[in-house]
Structure formats: structure tokens, C-alpha cells
């Protein structure tokens, strides 16, 4: 007997056909994956972190493999918002999925100016406000590690950006729930978490760090338990939707994030291991729903049994 399944999820004004999104910085702008998957089957994609001006990013080496994960220090390399609007957007706007632009900046003014430009793009229904990039000297994570600065940038962008705004949170804080609550109170439509965890890798033989920047952001299955804990904590503190991420490699991982309180999930590092993984997760969530007699995916959100 085939069940009628509802896999649609709402985040702000976004209507996702399923909870599976791709994480910023791990999926390019979409075309990179067209040979491997049907992008239109995704709930959404979050394109590469975009800033007001062109950024070259950090010097090579900017990646190191670590047990069950990787460190990166790409440093928001991107061609700037004008190139995105004029050259990249026209090639992706036809995707039948929710395209979110990850917006970053060194100053509040830069965030505002970038968000204003993105606001003009008809086929971009939302932004992910990146206040958690650990790999830039100015701005980025600095905004996301204290309540006053997180509030300041979120509030300022909210004033100019009228579509759905999700704020991407840093795990490199003492109390992530407090920051989630603070950005909710100034108008965030959702929060996404976690960005990468700050880490270091060292070569004992050469005594040198493996990254040009010494520190980088850890991602992959190594961070999953931390991410799950933070999603769970944030879910107790806010009533806006949470997009959970951190080491999701398969549908089971995705379900775990939903049970911990996420409405949708983002697949990041796993895209590097298997460029088709998102399709397997979309299918796997449906299989799970059938196996467990869950007809509406929304019933999985926060459904961890805590007794």
C-alpha cells in the first residue's frame, strides 16, 4: 500500500518541496552539480557566500583533511554581488527550487548594501545572513559571537530586506540559544546552524600548521553530535524554523536533525564525497516516512522522545 506523503516544509515565506537543502560554500551556485543530479528535486540551495566587493579569499593551503571531517579556510572567495547579479543569477534563476544567497560582509553597511541588491532579484526568495564565517579577519563570525552585534546586523538588514531572511549561526559561542533568540526578536524568519567549528591541524613532522591561516572551520561527521545538541538547544529557545546542518552524510542523519528540532536540513561537506548524496537523502527521507508510517514530514520536527 502506497502512502500519500507530504514532504513540504515552510520557512518564512519559503515553500520547500522537501526539507533537503545544500549548504553555502559546498555546492557552488548549482551548475557545478548539474552533471550529477537534478537540482529541481531539492528543497533549496544556498549559494556561495556573497559579499559587496570581490574577495580573493585566503592563500593556499586552505583545506586540511582531518579524521571524519575537514578544515577549511577558504575565506569567502567570491566575485562580489554585482557579478553574482549580472553573470551568475541569469544562469540559475530557472531552477525550480528555492535559491537562497548567503550574504556576508565586513561591516553592517556592506551587509545592507549586498542584501539590497539581492532583494531586487525576482527568483531569489530569501537570503541566509552569514554572521558566522570563521575564516575572515573582519566581520563574519565577529558579528555572530555576541548578542548585541548579532542583533545589530540582523536588525539593520531586516529594515531593507523584505523577503525571507534566515540567520546562519556560529557554534563558536558559549550560548547559541541566546543568540538565536536575539535574532528572532529582531525579525529573523529562521535560523540555520551550525556553521563550522573553529579548529587547527598541525603536521608534527614539519611542526607547521596545515592551513595558511593556522585556524579553519571544521565540518563533516566529526561535528555532528555538537550540531545536533545545538539544534536541540535552539529549538527550545525559539519558535521560528531551524535549518539544521553539521556532518549530514545520509538520510538517517537528516532525520536525526529533524527529530532534534530542525524543520529543514542542509547538506554540506557530504557533497564533496558524493555529488549525488542529496538525491539519496531526498529519497531516504521518504523511505523513512513510509517505514515509520509518518505521512507528513512536519510531524518529525522536534519529535525526539525525551520522556
Amino acid at each position, binding site marked *: 500500500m502506497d502512502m500519500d506523503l507530504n514532504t513540504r516544509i515552510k520557512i518564512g515565506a519559503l515553500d520547500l518541496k522537501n526539507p533537503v537543502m545544500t549548504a553555502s560554500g559546498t555546492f557552488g551556485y548549482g551548475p*557545478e552539480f548539474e552533471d*550529477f543530479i537534478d537540482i529541481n528535486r531539492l528543497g533549496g540551495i544556498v549559494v556561495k557566500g556573497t559579499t559587496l566587493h570581490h574577495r580573493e*579569499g585566503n592563500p593556499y*593551503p586552505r*583545506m586540511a583533511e582531518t579524521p571524519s571531517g575537514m578544515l*577549511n579556510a577558504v575565506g569567502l572567495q567570491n566575485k562580489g554581488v554585482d557579478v553574482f547579479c549580472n553573470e551568475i543569477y541569469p544562469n540559475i534563476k530557472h531552477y525550480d527550487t528555492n535559491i537562497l544567497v548567503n550574504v556576508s560582509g565586513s561591516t553592517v553597511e556592506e551587509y545592507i548594501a549586498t542584501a539590497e541588491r539581492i532583494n531586487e532579484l525576482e527568483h531569489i526568495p530569501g537570503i541566509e545572513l552569514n554572521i558566522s564565517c570563521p575564516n575572515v579577519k573582519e566581520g563574519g563570525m565577529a558579528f555572530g559571537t555576541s548578542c548585541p552585534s548579532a542583533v545589530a546586523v540582523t536588525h539593520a538588514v531586516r529594515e531593507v530586506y523584505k523577503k525571507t531572511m534566515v540567520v546562519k549561526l556560529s557554534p563558536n559561542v558559549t550560548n547559541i540559544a541566546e543568540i538565536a533568540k536575539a535574532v528572532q526578536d529582531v525579525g529573523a524568519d529562521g535560523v540555520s546552524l551550525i556553521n563550522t567549528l573553529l579548529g587547527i591541524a598541525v603536521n608534527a613532522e614539519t611542526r607547521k600548521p596545515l592551513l595558511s591561516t593556522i585556524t579553519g572551520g571544521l565540518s563533516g561527521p566529526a561535528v555532528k553530535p555538537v550540531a545536533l545538541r545545538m539544534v536541540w538547544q535552539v529549538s527550545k529557545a525559539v519558535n521560528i524554523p531551524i535549518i539544521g546542518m553539521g556532518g549530514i552524510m545520509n538520510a538517517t542523519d537528516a532525520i536525526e536533525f529533524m527529530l532534534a528540532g530542525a524543520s529543514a536540513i542542509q547538506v554540506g561537506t557530504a557533497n564533496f*564525497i558524493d555529488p549525488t548524496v542529496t538525491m539519496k537523502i531526498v529519497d531516504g527521507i521518504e523511505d523513512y516516512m513510509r517505514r515509520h508510517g509518518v505521512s507528513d514530514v512536519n510531524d518529525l520536527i522536534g519529535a525526539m522522545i525525551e520522556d
Partner: protein
Amino acid sequence: MHTDKKRAEDLTVVENRKINKDYYVLKLGAKNDLPQILPGHFVELLVEDTRNAFLRRPISIYDVQSECNSFELLIQIVGEGTRLMSNLQSGDTINVMYPLGNGFTTKTNAKNVLLVGGGVGVAPLLYLAKQLNEKGIRPNILLGGRAADNIIEIDNFSKYGEVFISTEDGSVGEKGFVTQHSVLNKEIDKIYTCGPDLMMRAVADIAFKQNIDCEVSLENMMACGIGACLCCVTDTKEGHKCVCTDGPVFNTKELKWNLA
């Protein structure tokens, strides 16, 4: 230029041929016709069942047998990933993303072509030599390494050009670095090189001084292999470019290598 779609699929190990304790040649077969593979293309191999080889392993394509839907990879054991893959047996499967990268330019007016390979960097030069032969060019092929153990597959290279050898310890061929080899005194119009970074820079320097066009195949650390993560960048005159998609082959004129 039209290129076939990239694939991620399970391929069958047709043969795993040990060369010596450090090197092996993995021959992989596909069920269906191969996409077009250019010399310089590479693959990303998924190593299963280890948390220490979390990312795929980028490996150059060594040779292609289109008629059998198979291709070969020349691999040096350098870490856990390449060690685990050395245990693969005929009939095993391995997930492969391919073909990746841009490839060497084989359309050339050059008559006197020199290929310079260092260590496992010789890998992409075999299929390149084969393709050059098809265009009527028989290159000189200089293979370099620390010692005799690092000079591999000489008979295979000899099929497609005259082979010259240099070793740092002089155990085979001329003693010294590839850049000191006498073959560099011959007339050369074009150099293709792949090997350790310092070797390629030294070769590029000689090419620059003698006004010889030079293509290098870079080997940066990479994650995705398809231009998404921006981890493998190299510094070019147009800013950071991805080795995985804008390369791995670059003309040295494009790179910021401060040749002088």
C-alpha cells in the same frame, strides 16, 4: 570545446598491477562506453571504510583503453587512502568521479616536444605521449626521481618517445635534478611537465628563460574536484583559480610563479 558529462559511478577493478613497494597501476573498467578522456584529466576515488581518508583521492589518468571501456591510474602509496586502495583486487568495485579537469593542449605546432615527469608525476604524461603520437609528434620523455626505485614504467614510455632518465643519487641515468639533464640542451619548442612543485617551478623557469611554451599539471590538495569548494586554488595572473576545474593543467604564462 564540447566535453562529455562528468560521472560518479562504481567501476570494476580489472587489474591491480604492483610495480614495486611504492607504486601500482589500477586498471578500472566501466560497463558502458567511457566519456571522452583527454590527457591530463583526473579522477576522484572514494576510499571506503576509513575515517582517515575522508575525502576522495584525486588521481591522474595514466592510460586509456577506449575499446575495452577501461583506463589506468598510476598510484604512489603516500598515505592511508593510497595504501588502502593498493589492496584492491580484480573484481572489486570503487566509486569514481570522472573525467575531471581540463587536460593538456595537444593541438600544437611544436615539433620538438619534451615531457618532464618527476616521481608519480609521470602519470598523466603517458596518455599525453600517446595522444601526441597520434598527431605525429614523438616527444622526448625525461623521467626524474630521487633514486632508481622512483623511475618506473620506462618500457611503457619508450613506446611513445625516446626516454631520458635522471636520478638525484645517480643510481640510474644522469646524476642530478631533471633541470640539469643534457636533454635540455637539445632543441625544444614545447614542454609539458608534472611532478613535485619545486621541480615544476624549476622546469618552468628554464622554459621561461629560453622562451619555450610550457604547460604544467598541478597537484593541489582538493576536496570536491568540481569547482564547488574552492579549496584547491592556485594563484594566477587573474586571481585564484581552481586547480580542479580551471586546471589541473595551466600554461605557466597564466601562473604567478615569478619566473625571471
